[in-house]
């Protein structure tokens, strides 16, 4: 078996296909390598060029977004976006989807989604201060809905509560269009100092590379690939593709990383998300324009006999990769050991521009890094605009016969009913800075900024929004509306909206009508962003959300963040009293 992973052998068309690579993509690999890849190398190309990592269907459209303003410190392109909120404080935030894993195993899928988005944020030097979640389930009476809702909610709470970051808001909708494909989008907001933000670009030659966190196991390795028996000696038990989260280790990672970040020991840092060791090492090398050499024997491993292929593609959770300042190795070891984390020096930066992997005294991978990023597929998928429909005029709709019944119908709609059952399972107050959260039913959550000397008089407002039915009816208008809604929600609580993150959930991009929805929504969102000077600083795309050829409603979830400079000017729904005047403002 070993030579399948290392030695000379033929990569068959089937193997290429199982790795989700097209023939033409494989041609590019052959051309860049000037030889056949071995299986490990093929695996690395396949994950780097997957939709998930390369954004091959969406990249050219995401490029249109407004991404700068005088408050943006870092826009899209890093683990999360960074904005300036004055006084040397920065807010770092991002939203991400974990749809498919949450459908397969709701508790763990949702939990690891929360864990992943938190890592994106603390990787950049921020202490996570708030979590939000945007959830979309199928019809309430669909047989799977009940257990999906309870599993997802328990998973989000189970992870966030344990790590000790408040989950302060979100949204939950029900629609038959999500019966076979729920959406679990999680957002994390963190607080850092503007002069202590960390990036992923590796620098220097010969600098040590550290691995920290949980050991690597065979978690989530390529469903398709692993199913084929030829890679798998002991396949009596089909390996689960679902990862189990370990929020306790995540909490230790946060504390340990922030402690080390307070020194000058870290040159670059990157969490291991999807395609863990592969994407983290390649992103660090590519951004820094250096090469990387890893000794896989030194990678902390949870199971015996792991191959290079398995280690590079493992999606084990709660792991980080960092380039350490030479001479600071001991300091790093001390901090991580204090927090009881597995830590190992597993390689070094080089000046070759190549990714070299050593395993068992052999070189098992030696490929140039630039093509992995530069030559990643970038498709201009055909897209047909969604047909305009006639506007539904109020006078075309019959007035309700019975006002009480109409009101009851609205109030008992699953989208309108109280979500208390959900948010009571989330710790909304830990960290003692929650000014307003789900509980009050307000438009945005409000979190006080906690400086190094204690609480300040400043706060951030956070909201997530999306109305998929508008996007379905008219993607451009729906896209505008999503962004505008977050803007209104932030404004309503007294905040100045600053920037957004997004999570673009759509169906199969290879279908022109779906691609049309995608492009339409982006165009609409972008128009609104430009109109408000309200840039996109981070985000995530989730495509192929379909079951049996039926796509989910187009769901570009947006998370907005605004600044409240003086807590005295906060406005919430709390404290209303009988006899007060209600006013309706606007169109």
């Amino acid at each position: 078996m070993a030579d399948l992973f290392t030695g000379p052998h033929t990569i068959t068309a089937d193997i290429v296909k199982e790795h989700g690579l097209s023939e033409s993509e494989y041609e590019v690999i052959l051309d860049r390598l000037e030889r056949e890849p071995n299986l490990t190398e093929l695996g690395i190309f396949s994950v780097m060029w997957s939709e998930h990592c390369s954004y091959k269907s969406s990249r050219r459209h995401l490029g249109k977004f407004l991404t700068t303003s005088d408050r943006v410190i870092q826009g899209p392109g890093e683990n999360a976006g960074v904005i300036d909120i004055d006084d040397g404080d920065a807010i770092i935030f991002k939203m991400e989807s974990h749809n498919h894993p949450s459908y397969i195993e709701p508790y763990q899928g949702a939990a690891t989604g929360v864990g992943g988005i938190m890592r994106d944020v603390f990787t950049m030097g921020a202490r996570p201060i708030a979590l939000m979640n945007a959830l979309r389930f199928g019809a309430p009476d669909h047989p799977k809905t009940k257990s999906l809702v309870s599993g997802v909610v328990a998973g989000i709470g189970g992870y966030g509560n344990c790590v000790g970051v408040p989950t302060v808001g979100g949204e939950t909708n029900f629609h038959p269009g999500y019966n076979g494909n729920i959406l679990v989008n999680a957002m994390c907001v963190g607080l850092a100092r503007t002069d202590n933000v960390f990036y992923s670009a590796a620098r220097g030659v010969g600098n040590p590379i550290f691995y920290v966190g949980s050991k690597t196991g065979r978690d989530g390795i390529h469903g398709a690939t692993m199913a084929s028996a030829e890679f798998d000696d002991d396949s009596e038990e089909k390996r689960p593709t679902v990862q189990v989260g370990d929020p306790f280790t995540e909490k230790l990672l946060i504390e340990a990383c922030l402690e080390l970040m307070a020194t000058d020991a870290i040159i670059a840092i990157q969490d291991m998300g999807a395609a863990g060791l592969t994407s983290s090492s390649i992103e660090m090398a590519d951004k820094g324009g250096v090469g990387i050499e890893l000794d896989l024997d030194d990678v902390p491993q949870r199971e015996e006999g792991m191959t290079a292929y398995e280690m590079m593609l493992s999606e084990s959770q709660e792991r980080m990769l960092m380039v350490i300042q030479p001479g600071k190795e001991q300091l790093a070891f001390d901090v991580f050991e204090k927090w009881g984390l597995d830590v190992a020096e597993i390689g070094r930066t080089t000046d070759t521009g190549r990714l070299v992997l050593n395993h068992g005294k052999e070189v098992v991978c030696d490929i140039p890094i630039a093509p992995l990023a530069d030559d990643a597929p970038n498709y201009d998928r055909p897209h047909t605009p969604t047909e305009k429909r006639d506007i539904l005029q109020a006078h075309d709709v019959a007035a309700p016969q019975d006002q009480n019944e109409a009101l009851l119908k609205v109030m008992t709609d699953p989208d309108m009913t109280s979500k208390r059952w959900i948010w009571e399972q989330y710790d909304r107050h830990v960290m003692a800075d929650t000014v307003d959260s789900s509980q009050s039913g307000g438009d945005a959550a409000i979190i006080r900024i906690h400086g190094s000397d204690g609480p300040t008089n400043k706060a951030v407002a956070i909201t997530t929004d999306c109305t998929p039915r508008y996007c379905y009816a008219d993607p451009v208008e729906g896209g505008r509306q999503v962004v505008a809604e977050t803007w209104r929600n932030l404004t309503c609580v007294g905040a100045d909206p600053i920037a957004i993150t997004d999570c673009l959930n759509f169906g199969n991009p290879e279908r022109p009508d779906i691609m049309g929805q995608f492009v339409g929504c982006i165009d609409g969102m972008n128009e609104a962003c430009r109109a408000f000077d309200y840039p996109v600083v981070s985000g995530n795309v989730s495509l192929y959300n379909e079951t049996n050829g039926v796509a989910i409603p187009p769901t570009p979830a947006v998370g907005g963040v605004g600044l409240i400079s003086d807590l005295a000017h906060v406005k919430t729904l709390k404290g209303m009293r009988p006899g007060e005047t209600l006013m309706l403002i606007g169109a």
Partner: protein
Amino acid sequence: MIARVYVGLKPGVLDPQGRTIAHSLNDLGFDEVQDAKQGKVIELTLSGDDREAAEARVKEMCETLLANTVIESYRIELDD
């Protein structure tokens, strides 16, 4: 009739609880502990006395509720 269902994580699935228990036993001076795994036992009291039928039913209970077969495996034992 009593049925006992043992539910444990499938091999290869991360067991954070087990790992933490092993560490903590080591910290307490139990150096001989090399590894720990945590599982569940569910003891069911059942009416009826047809063992074979009971076994089939309990299997069905495991598949629908008692075990999360995506990550867990189970084993059934019957007593009288």
